[in-house]
């Protein structure tokens, strides 16, 4: 196998002979994907399958007075037409709250709206037909009588007394509120020489997975079995929820996840239309398929961000930060999304602001309010882009105020690399981070001083370039502290079951899932190394609740750190089992043997004793030749969950270099750098590409992506012509470097890397933009996305 790029592993414990840890081996599933042989849910076709289309509310808020469907039933191809009230007999509603988010509240949400639609896009009726086209044709024949209700759209006024309450039984439009006071913020501000205040705005955007959400649900009453093909990040979570709300036992539900055309947090939630599709399958006793089209995706895929943060920082003339304060307001649509809730992002913002720095004085208020817009929930890097942009934006504004270089101000305040373990102002615990080493590395990579010189020279010629940084921290490898303690049946542990086959190859069944990050490759690398076989002898199976160990799936940058450790430990356990059998055959001491490259060898000399294939042949086909009483076990399972730390925090720093055309307001990204510390790097190429993809996703948020609503709650740009996405020609090349600080919580030492890019990119681009415009006395741009119009306004040109 070709090794594309090698780096030396930072961990001696992992230095097994023929180790794949730290090597850029290609992913096993790439070849078939390049051949058009993927198996996405949108490709799934089953016998007797029918298609559902949903009629969706055109109003942001309206009472449904009547639904007339008589013309629909005789339309060509129509199998069934089902209203919310009818479907409610098959599926129960849900409420998106968790007990550890104290006081969070939401209203029951139905699979299809009953009596009232609460956002533009909420499904009000389903039509099932032989084809999707026929189902959509028939939707046009449904007559719905709506009574429009006042729409609550502005988060700023959602809590005003004059604003209607969306769910009267809840008393107000407040979903969740959290306050935090750490240290003595008042004294901190009093001790400062300068206080910088700023208001940051983060526009609503969404995931825009290239494959829209898709589900095929099949109910077979003959065996009382619901089989769901779903592009989801968390199959076991969905198994629980389908069972719970459809009156089934969990073992009566099987969730299958094959190829997923992008997820990014979009596909880790419960969607009403997907739950409705499963309910329709149960009702109709046959497979029902739903694939969201792009317009539906824009009005029903969870939206993200939409925060307004008033923030301030106190700083002394010598650069010492004396206090942080934030007031965060976020609007999350009419329901807190089930089961992870829509309170987590604001909670994360409170946790993470100021996180890289030593300042102990911190005051935070976060309020989450209901609105009549599409629902909002966790999306890649949950809360981090907001907390990082607020913190790092304040840092660079403060540096400008006290006349200090932005790097120097960071150096004076970042938690020292030898100060760990440490606790952040919000109480978050850091095992070991490397802010200063990361900063040193990125400065060398970008040749910072030279870049500053170049910037100054160009300014003299009327060319405005900016350099911006963002130090950041990132939550990965979550323990039960994230969801389990709050009562959600979302597993924080994960497992791997290994089976030696009769020819010496290994099957790995893992609860982690693959959406393109390369989880299957990482799992194979862990097993191949710890068991001792060539990578080609490992086959990984994920995404099947019937056959994989119970686990959480892939989210919160957990697949490599948690799923990988379980696989690593399972490989060790299988090695011990196989060596016990080999020792029995060879009349040897198992401790004196090892498995290397698929061969049982003497551990001290490496002398070959017998191939795995021969051990397997004896155990499976000639067990009669083994000593009496010896039973070989060639299936092993190991599980892992982080226990010593609630989260494995990672850290890093990003830098952006860009040029602003002051006549057009257009921003040209020249270069982007990232140094990241995710502990042990199992596959450098995969980590780097996670970072690059995440960075571009963050750049999209900073410069282009925005779900624009009018005052009536109508989405104005729900298509790919009007909603701007980062495309190849606008994106810079991105240079990635690493500092390696393994976590001691696992033997592998790997932390997550999937979200760090998205966490830091918006902040670094924002800071570079403001750095570019500073000599023009432009008002700081703190309102994402930074469109040409906003740039020109800041320059007072329009």
């Amino acid at each position: 196998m070709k090794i594309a790029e090698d780096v030396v592993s930072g961990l001696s414990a992992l230095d097994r002979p023929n180790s794949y840890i730290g090597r850029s081996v290609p992913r096993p599933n790439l070849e078939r994907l390049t051949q058009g042989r993927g198996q996405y849910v949108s490709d799934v076709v089953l016998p007797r399958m029918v298609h559902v289309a949903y009629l969706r509310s055109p109003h942001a808020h309206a009472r449904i007075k009547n639904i007339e469907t008589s013309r629909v039933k005789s339309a060509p191809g129509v199998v069934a037409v089902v209203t919310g009230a009818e479907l409610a007999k098959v599926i129960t509603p849900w409420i998106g709250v968790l007990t550890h988010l104290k006081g969070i509240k939401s209203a029951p949400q139905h699979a299809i709206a009953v009596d009232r639609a609460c956002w533009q896009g909420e499904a009000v009726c389903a039509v099932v037909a032989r084809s999707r086209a026929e189902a959509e044709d028939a939707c046009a024949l449904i007559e719905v009588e709506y009574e429009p209700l006042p729409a609550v759209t502005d988060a700023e006024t959602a809590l005003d007394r004059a604003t209607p309450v969306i769910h009267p039984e809840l008393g107000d439009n407040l979903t969740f509120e959290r306050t935090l006071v750490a240290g003595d913020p008042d004294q901190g501000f009093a001790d400062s020489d300068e206080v910088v205040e700023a208001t940051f705005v983060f526009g609503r955007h969404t995931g825009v997975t290239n494959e829209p959400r898709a589900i095929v649900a099949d109910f077979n009453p003959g065996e009382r079995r619901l089989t769901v093909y779903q592009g989801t990040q968390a199959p076991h979570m969905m198994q629980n929820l389908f069972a719970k709300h459809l009156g089934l036992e969990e073992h009566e539900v099987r969730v299958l996840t094959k190829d997923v055309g992008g997820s990014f947090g979009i596909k880790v939630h419960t969607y009403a239309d997907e739950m409705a599709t499963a309910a329709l399958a149960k009702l109709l006793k046959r497979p029902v398929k739903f694939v969201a089209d792009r317009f539906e995706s824009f009005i029903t895929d969870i939206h993200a961000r939409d925060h307004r943060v008033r923030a301030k920082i106190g700083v002394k003339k010598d650069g010492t930060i004396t206090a942080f304060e934030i007031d965060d307001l976020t609007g999350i649509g009419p329901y807190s999304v089930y089961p992870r809730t829509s309170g987590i992002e604001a909670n994360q913002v409170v946790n993470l602001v100021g996180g890289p720095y030593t300042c102990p004085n911190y005051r935070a208020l976060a309020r989450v309010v209901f609105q009549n817009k599409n629902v909002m929930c966790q999306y890649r890097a949950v809360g981090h882009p907001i907390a990082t942009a607020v913190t790092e934006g304040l840092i660079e504004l403060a540096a400008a105020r006290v006349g200090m270089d932005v790097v120097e101000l960071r150096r004076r305040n970042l938690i020292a690399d030898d100060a760990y373990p440490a606790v952040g102002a919000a109480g978050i615990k850091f095992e070991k981070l490397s802010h200063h080493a990361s900063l040193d590395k990125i400065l060398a990579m970008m040749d910072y001083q030279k870049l500053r010189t170049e910037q100054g020279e160009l300014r003299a010629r009327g060319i405005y370039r900016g350099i911006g940084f963002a130090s950041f921290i990132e939550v990965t490898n979550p323990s039960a502290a994230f969801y389990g303690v709050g009562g959600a049946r979302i597993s924080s542990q994960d497992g791997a079951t290994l089976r030696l086959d009769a020819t010496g190859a290994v099957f790995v069944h893992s609860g982690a899932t693959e959406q393109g990050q390369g989880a299957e490759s990482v799992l194979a690398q862990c097993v191949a190394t710890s068991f001792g076989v060539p990578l080609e002898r490992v086959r990984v199976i994920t995404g099947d609740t019937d056959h994989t160990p119970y686990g959480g799936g892939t989210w919160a940058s957990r697949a490599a750190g948690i799923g990988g450790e379980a696989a690593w430990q399972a490989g060790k356990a299988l090695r011990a089992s196989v060596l016990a059998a080999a020792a029995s055959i060879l009349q040897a001491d198992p401790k004196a043997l090892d498995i290397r490259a698929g061969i049982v060898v003497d551990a001290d000399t490496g002398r070959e004793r017998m191939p795995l294939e021969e051990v397997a042949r004896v155990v499976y086909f000639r067990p009669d030749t083994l000593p009496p009483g010896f039973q070989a076990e060639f299936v092993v399972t190991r599980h892992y969950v982080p226990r010593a730390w609630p989260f494995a925090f990672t850290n890093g720093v990003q830098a952006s270099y860009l040029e602003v055309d002051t006549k057009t307001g257009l921003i040209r990204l020249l270069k982007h750098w990232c140094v990241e510390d995710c502990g042990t790097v199992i596959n450098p190429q995969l980590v780097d590409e996670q970072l690059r993809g995440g960075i571009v996703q963050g750049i999209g948020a900073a410069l282009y992506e925005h779900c624009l609503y009018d005052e009536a709650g109508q989405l104005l740009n729900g298509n790919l012509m009007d909603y701007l996405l980062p495309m190849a020609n606008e994106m810079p090349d991105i240079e990635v470097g690493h500092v390696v600080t393994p976590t001691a919580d696992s033997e592998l030492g790997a932390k997550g890397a999937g979200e760090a890019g998205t966490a830091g990119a918006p902040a670094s681009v924002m800071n570079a933009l403001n750095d570019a415009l500073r000599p023009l006395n432009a008002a700081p741009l703190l309102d994402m996305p930074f469109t040409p119009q906003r740039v020109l306004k800041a320059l007072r040109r329009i």
Partner: protein
Amino acid sequence: MSARHLDISMRVNGEAVSARVEARKTLVDFLRDDLSLTGTHVGCEHGVCGACTVRFDGEAVRSCLLLAVQCDGAEVETIEGLADSGEIADLQAAFARRNALQCGYCTPGMLIGAHELLASGTVPSRTVIREHISGNYCRCTGYQAIVDAIQQVAQARAAVK
């Protein structure tokens, strides 16, 4: 034959195909639903994302913007045909080696777009590569790996000549 349906014949991946199709059916739906060629993907259905890119009489086109009936008499090639013939084997290998795909959903369209760019035999600059694939949306990679892979193939092809 009703007004809503038309009979068409075309060659798809070198095989002769005759079918009666709804006049409103797009080429991508015809390829996926009628011919089970699911390697061509549906991303936006309004011609922006490029996931449905196929070759139509030798030219890379959006199959969501063409009706199947417009393809009567045409030669259509999808990722399955290009993969089986070995025509883009070097591009596929470069994409895999460089991890120029993650979820893989954009990949068939991206490969067909890249193949069109490289057909001229020149070695395009990174800027030209970026511009050429800027009609193909990829959410996963950030594009750099794709640009690298295409550039490597262009250089390798030029070196052989």
